[in-house]
């Protein structure tokens, strides 16, 4: 049974359309991440799922039941908010109990659930404190506890870790993943942080300008980005994208971006109608190397503008015939800024008319 099915969701605020025909399915127990830059409509979509915002068109199904006409409280969901939204005047215990109390659950059951949840999240010693007496991480736990205690069918997370510092965020990420495995409940998680998306999601839906750009497993999204936006959005540093005019030759494709000409191996493909036109060629920074490799690489000569050493590896910023090229490589690089260097590239990504065109693996 599907945990969540969204069909052709549209949303307009006045004259502005913020969501365009969004359809999405999450299986029972699946962890779906809505990933996109701010303003892409991901939080609005989450609020529509929650029932906090009505959609203009389309339908929302949760647990096999259409919930379009139901208020948030009857959708069997729980939500964790970006700013936690704990009730500041209530203790942690009262915060956890609030939803159950509003639903008229008997006291012994409420107490039992609180104890259970507190144990799961290791917050039992915080139960009698008020939210302001808690650290950010503790508040985050309580916010999750408030969601868990109700045992909903679907969890919604709206950038829940974005207010925590980097270290805490990383550890909460791990805990969240464990929690999901333990509870086995479907989760929809909104974030703009690709690291969170890649580590947490079973499925990632990348959004931009109110449209879903690509839905897939994290490795799919990373290795086979469906369009230049996804290619450029996922990965750190982002993929190098060269936009220009292409021409097909017998066994390769030639792309001219400014003064730079790249020739990559190519086989005829249905998606490519014309022998020439405009295209985008992408290459991930880690697929650019400086040591002479065996074969199958495309070599270009560039000048190093800047080297950023990150300890474990280094990010090298180059100019290649006026085009910027970023490489991620080992910090043992001998060259320095200003040096001329040959860069070898393979594993290109080709996009024509905004669509990915598979290239023969080199």
């Amino acid at each position, binding site marked *: 049974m599907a945990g969540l099915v969204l069909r052709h969701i549209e949303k307009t605020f006045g004259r502005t359309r913020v969501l365009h025909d969004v359809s999405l399915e999450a299986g029972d127990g699946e962890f779906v991440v809505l990933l996109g830059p701010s303003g892409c409509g991901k939080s609005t979509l989450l609020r529509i799922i929650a029932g906090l915002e009505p959609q203009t068109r389309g339908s929302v199904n949760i647990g096999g039941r259409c919930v379009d006409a139901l208020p948030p*409280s009857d959708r069997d969901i729980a*939500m964790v908010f970006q700013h936690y939204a704990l009730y500041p005047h209530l203790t942690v215990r009262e915060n956890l109990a609030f939803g159950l109390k*509003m639903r008229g659950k008997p006291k012994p059951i409420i107490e039992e659930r609180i104890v259970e949840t507190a144990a799961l999240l290791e917050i039992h010693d915080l139960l009698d404190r008020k939210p302001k007496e808690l650290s950010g991480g503790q508040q985050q736990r309580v916010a999750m506890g408030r969601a868990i205690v109700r045992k909903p069918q679907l969890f919604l997370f709206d950038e829940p870790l974005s207010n925590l510092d980097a270290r805490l965020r990383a550890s909460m990420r791990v805990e969240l993943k464990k929690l999901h495995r333990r509870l086995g409940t479907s989760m929809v998680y909104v974030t703009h942080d690709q690291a969170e998306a890649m580590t947490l999601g079973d499925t990632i839906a990348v959004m931009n300008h109110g449209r879903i750009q690509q839905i897939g497993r994290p490795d799919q999204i990373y290795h086979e980005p469906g369009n230049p936006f996804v290619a450029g959005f996922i990965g750190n540093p982002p993929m190098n994208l060269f936009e220009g005019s292409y021409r097909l030759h017998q066994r390769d494709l030639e792309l001219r971006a400014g003064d730079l000409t790249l020739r990559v191996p190519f086989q005829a493909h249905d998606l490519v109608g014309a022998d020439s036109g405009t295209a985008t060629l992408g290459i991930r920074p880690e697929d650019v190397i400086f040591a002479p490799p065996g074969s199958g690489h495309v070599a270009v000569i560039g000048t190093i503008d800047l080297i950023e050493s990150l300890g474990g590896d280094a990010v090298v910023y180059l100019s290649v015939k006026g085009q910027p090229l970023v490489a991620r490589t080992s910090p043992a690089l001998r060259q320095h800024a200003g040096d001329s260097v040959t860069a070898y590239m393979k594993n290109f990504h080709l996009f024509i008319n905004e669509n990915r065109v598979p290239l023969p693996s080199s």
Partner: protein
Amino acid sequence: MTPSTRDRTTGWLMVFPALTFVTVFSLYPAMDSFLLSLYSEFPGSERSFIGFGNYAELFRDPVAHQAFIVTLGFVLLSTTLELLLGTGIALVIHERFKGRGWTRAAVLIPWAIPTVVAAQMWRFLLNDQYGAVNAILFGDQVDAYVPWLADPWMAFGAIVLADVWKTSSFAGLLILAGLQVIPDETYDAARIDGATAWQRFWHITFPLLKPALLTALLFRTIDAFRAFDLVFVMTQGGPGDATQVIQFYGYKTLFTEGRVGYGTTISVTVFVALAILSLFYVRTVGSKLLQREPA
């Protein structure tokens, strides 16, 4: 000069203007009033030191007792009504609707009108012969016209009404400020938690509004205790002593009867009572305000 002495000198220089202002315009008059209250003095006669004689008299004065009761009734009734109405106003102008800006401005108009003007307006409205209230209620039936301000209870009701009309919007403004700091997310969370509109008000809005309500309460009680101009314009304390609030009694004793010492004693007593009340509020409410969760 060591840096610390220089810092000190700069510090004193900085506070000097404010300190002078407070000393000349607040501290000195307060002290002088207190000294004056220890004398028996009439204009044109010798002042004689009588210690706390004036205070002893005030303690026994039945008119003063009556004035205290009227003041207390006025404070309780008007403050309660203003807070209730203010909360209602705040809840309405907090909602998003077309023309909210204009509504907010319109709501504040009574508060912007000077009290003396408002009081005069109410006196006209309630006039027993040509007042709009009688005209609206009874039209041509002139015989039925009610002399509102001539009846002790109705006159008291009238000054309460005028005060409530005038200052509810101010209370509303303070409460609105309190409403605006409650994040929308909190309400979203409560909606998902299954709270109905009434439960959201009772369990979320009301408790989170307490600091704002207490601030409004503080301002309004102190203001109501000092009520003078409404009474001065509308009723002159009458009929009988029905609307004679303590400040007005003090004024009358001092300026009409010329009992400088005794009139000052009344003022000083009100001043001390308010100081104690303020201190109490700041201690209890103020500490709660400081504890308040930053939004």
